[in-house]
């Protein structure tokens, strides 16, 4: 019930800013999901530092959550370098060098985690692309790549924490946006849970993120992880995944969910509909491609 978009700039000076590009692409397909909008943005951080984003709510509730988080930071030796509260969210940069999975499960108990990463920051809230930008200044992001998502809520409520993108709980810098429905969700989730992974939501997109992150953690490249996801997941899906250095897509064998891409020397852009791609190049007919059913691919940024 949604629209997705992703962009990766292959080199520094294409004249395109990732934040603005994603806002435009999502505004172009907002009809697919008017309820909430989200962004996964990648901007290189400082060595040894982690960026964390949380939903903390408002007023007292927020104060309590932040206090609880700080206690967890202390306990795990995370030193706060920068912090900021924006609307119902809390952004903090910490110096940290311990076990990330343990740390992230611990902070999960104190507040709702939106993202954790060296370069990843996820921003998501109710409203359209421009509404979310007004609150979070998405257009200021200049990073190398990012994903975006617009959502029409049905099963779950219209709440910021139920919006996308999803972070792969427990794994730094992995994010996903997904259009479709994974029908063997519980089977896959139990498999991962038996191996000790925790899930922050019942959303099938989080499952894909954790699934892929787990594979990569075992040393399997993103590309091969995508290949096995197509075999392992049942249902209809078109999804985009991003890590610190790569983005990729996978599409189910039934080809029930749209996806279209455009690539040139400067960038690769992928979206649910061509109308989003055209927002990057107004007035130009683009040489686009529709990925075939059951296909996947990845792209890396030049480091």
């Amino acid at each position: 019930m949604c629209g997705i978009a992703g962009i990766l700039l292959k080199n520094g000076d294409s004249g395109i800013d990732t934040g603005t590009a994603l806002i435009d692409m999502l505004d172009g397909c907002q009809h697919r999901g008017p309820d909430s909008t989200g962004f996964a943005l990648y901007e290189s951080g400082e060595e040894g530092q982690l960026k964390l984003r949380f939903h903390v709510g408002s007023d007292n509730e927020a104060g309590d959550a932040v206090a609880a988080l700080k206690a967890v930071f202390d306990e795990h030796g995370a030193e706060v370098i920068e912090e900021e509260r924006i609307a119902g969210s809390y952004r903090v940069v910490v110096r940290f060098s311990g076990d990330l999975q343990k740390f992230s499960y611990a902070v999960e108990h104190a507040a709702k985690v939106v993202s954790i990463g060296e370069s990843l920051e996820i921003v998501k809230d109710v409203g359209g692309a421009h509404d979310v930008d007004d609150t979070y200044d998405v257009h200021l992001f200049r990073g190398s790549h990012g994903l975006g998502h617009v959502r029409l809520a049905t099963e779950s409520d219209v709440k910021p924490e139920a919006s996308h993108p999803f972070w792969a709980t427990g794994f730094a810098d992995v994010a996903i946006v997904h259009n479709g429905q994974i029908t063997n969700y519980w089977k896959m989730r139990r498999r991962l849970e038996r191996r000790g992974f925790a899930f922050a939501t019942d959303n099938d997109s989080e499952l894909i993120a954790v699934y892929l992150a787990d594979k990569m953690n075992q040393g399997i490249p993103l590309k091969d992880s995508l290949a096995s996801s197509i075999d392992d997941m049942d249902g209809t899906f078109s999804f985009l995944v991003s890590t610190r250095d790569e983005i990729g897509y996978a599409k189910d064998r039934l080809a029930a969910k749209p996806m279209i891409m455009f690539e040139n020397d400067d960038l690769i852009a992928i979206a649910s509909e061509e109308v989003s791609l055209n927002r990057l190049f107004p007035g130009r007919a683009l040489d686009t491609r529709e990925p075939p059913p059951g296909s996947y691919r990845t792209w890396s940024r030049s480091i």
Partner: protein
Amino acid sequence: MVTVDLKDLSTREANESIREAAARGETIEVLNPDARHHIGVGVIHPVDIHVRGSAGYFCAGLTDTPRFHIERNAGWGLADNMYRGSVVVGGNAGAIAGVAIRGAEVVIRGNMGSRAGQVMKKGTLLCCGNANFMAGYMMYGGRMIILGESGERLGEDMTGGEIFLGGDLVSLGSDAMETDIAEDEIDDIRAFLDRYEIPFRGSLRKIVNAGKKLRYGTPERQVRSIPYFNFSGDSGYWNHKVQEDVYIKSQIGRYRVRGYGGARELPHLSDLAFARDIIPGALGDDPVSRVRMHTLIGGKNGAKPLDLTMPVLIAPMSYGALSRSAKQAVAIASGMAGIAENTGEGGMSDAQRDAAGQLIFQMLGGRLGWNIHDMNRADGLEIYISQGAKPGFGGQLMAKKVTKELAEIRGIPAGIDLRSPSRHPDILGADDLVIKVEELREATGYRVPVSVKLGAGRIHDDIKIAVKDGFDFVELDGMQGSTGAGGAEVMEYVGIPTISAICEAERALASIGRRQDIEIVLMGGLRDGVDAVKALCLGADAVALGTAAIIAGGCIACMQCHVGQCVTGIATQDPEHEKRYKPEIEAQHIYTFLESVRWQIAAVTRGLGYDDVRGPCRDDLVALTPEAAEITGLPLCPERRDSGLPEINAAMERALR
């Protein structure tokens, strides 16, 4: 030449300019299309339209006779439902290119996406590059030419038509097979390619339907049928119904297909009673004149609403399941009563259009009988998602009923066991649905309401989608609704009762604060004006009657609708049987019945102390059974069984005598 620049215009404004220019016979140029959706939908004049760039979804959709030239790519649903005319795409086309075309020529110079030509009926779809997954899926007729690779599962579940393949065959779909190609077919194709200046020297192979699936090998033997009322009567584990079921299954070795609805005892409006006694004195002699019953439905988003003399509509019933005469009788009666009729599946006939004062035109997944001209003369457009008797399932029309005339309207081969698909080619989620709704609105200039027919299943989610996708109203159908033909097990066991449907829908809309943004027409097992008022109390804005109208018009409830030999001439396409049906006489009966419904609605409303049908509310109801109380959240008051209504019935007898 007229230039329409999408840089400065909304799609709606652009389409209005395009249609106006087309009506004047001018050539049109569309600048800065930037892959926007719905470009040029609804054009019905033979003009050239040049799209200078790429087009989005449904470009050239719902059109007749124009010639589109799209410089680069086209999105999903290219040339959707196009009658005559042509589209040439310079680049690639997305999924379901040429969906449901009915005579158009569609030429794609590049590749095309999945499920191309789904449910196409006539015309030519040519792809110069490669096709993709399931090209020709469920196609009923016409010709598809693929010069490149076939993609996987070519011709999956095709019923008719031909596919010609120039490149590699990746794999054939189920029930498709290769066959010999005739010289004149090749000549025809060469001529076609020459006409569009497409060089191709290779050889072609031909793929058609293998005829192994989609046929019922063993027909159901006709039995001396027991009427529905015995059929659904006395419960208990062994009874006439079970006996008949077992007997028939022993003959045919599969599930039964039959008409009518489930026969199981389920919570129903009759498990609710009015909280207060009806005050006989308050009724007066003529309650109808003392209650405001006038109802507008469908105007929420600026379209011209249906204008009803009472909050009642006729439920959608297909021409196909019903005979032309029966449809005509219902249409006449609806016109006389000042309410709205609905085409159901299978198209609109002139007789029906003329007789019905207001007519909703229904669109189903097979797009059988769907076309721009009838859309333009409809008073409402309806997207069928599912119905209460068989939510999630497609339609079945047995070969016996698929006559030449009927096949023509539907655009399919005559004499096949016709299964209508359970899904729409271009609606795979709420995100696609919103684009489809917009297409219908764009094609008809936002003039008429667009509604959705929903058989209640996960209605809590579905109704939220309905309001978020911008429908004007929903025709909400519960498990007690009937059908012209459905699998018996599905009718008995799938779905949720009508009272659950309305209560869940109300709760879901309240939970997102959107109740005021959509109207609900409730149906499924409503029998009379008393049921109607209870439905209004539960929150419905109006109700629809299907079975009741048919019975009023002479149906004897034998449940053999699917067989096609209806003795009353209602559910048949056989002229010999249909001859028995006298539409003018039955129309009068249906009309008289509808007037009794009107009288009852007025009398009960008045009796409850209101002078407007919008008055009755939940406070006026109690539940008689624990199940009904649980479902509705109404207080349980079994002691009110039979209270109140005898006065109404007595008064009605007096009034109608």
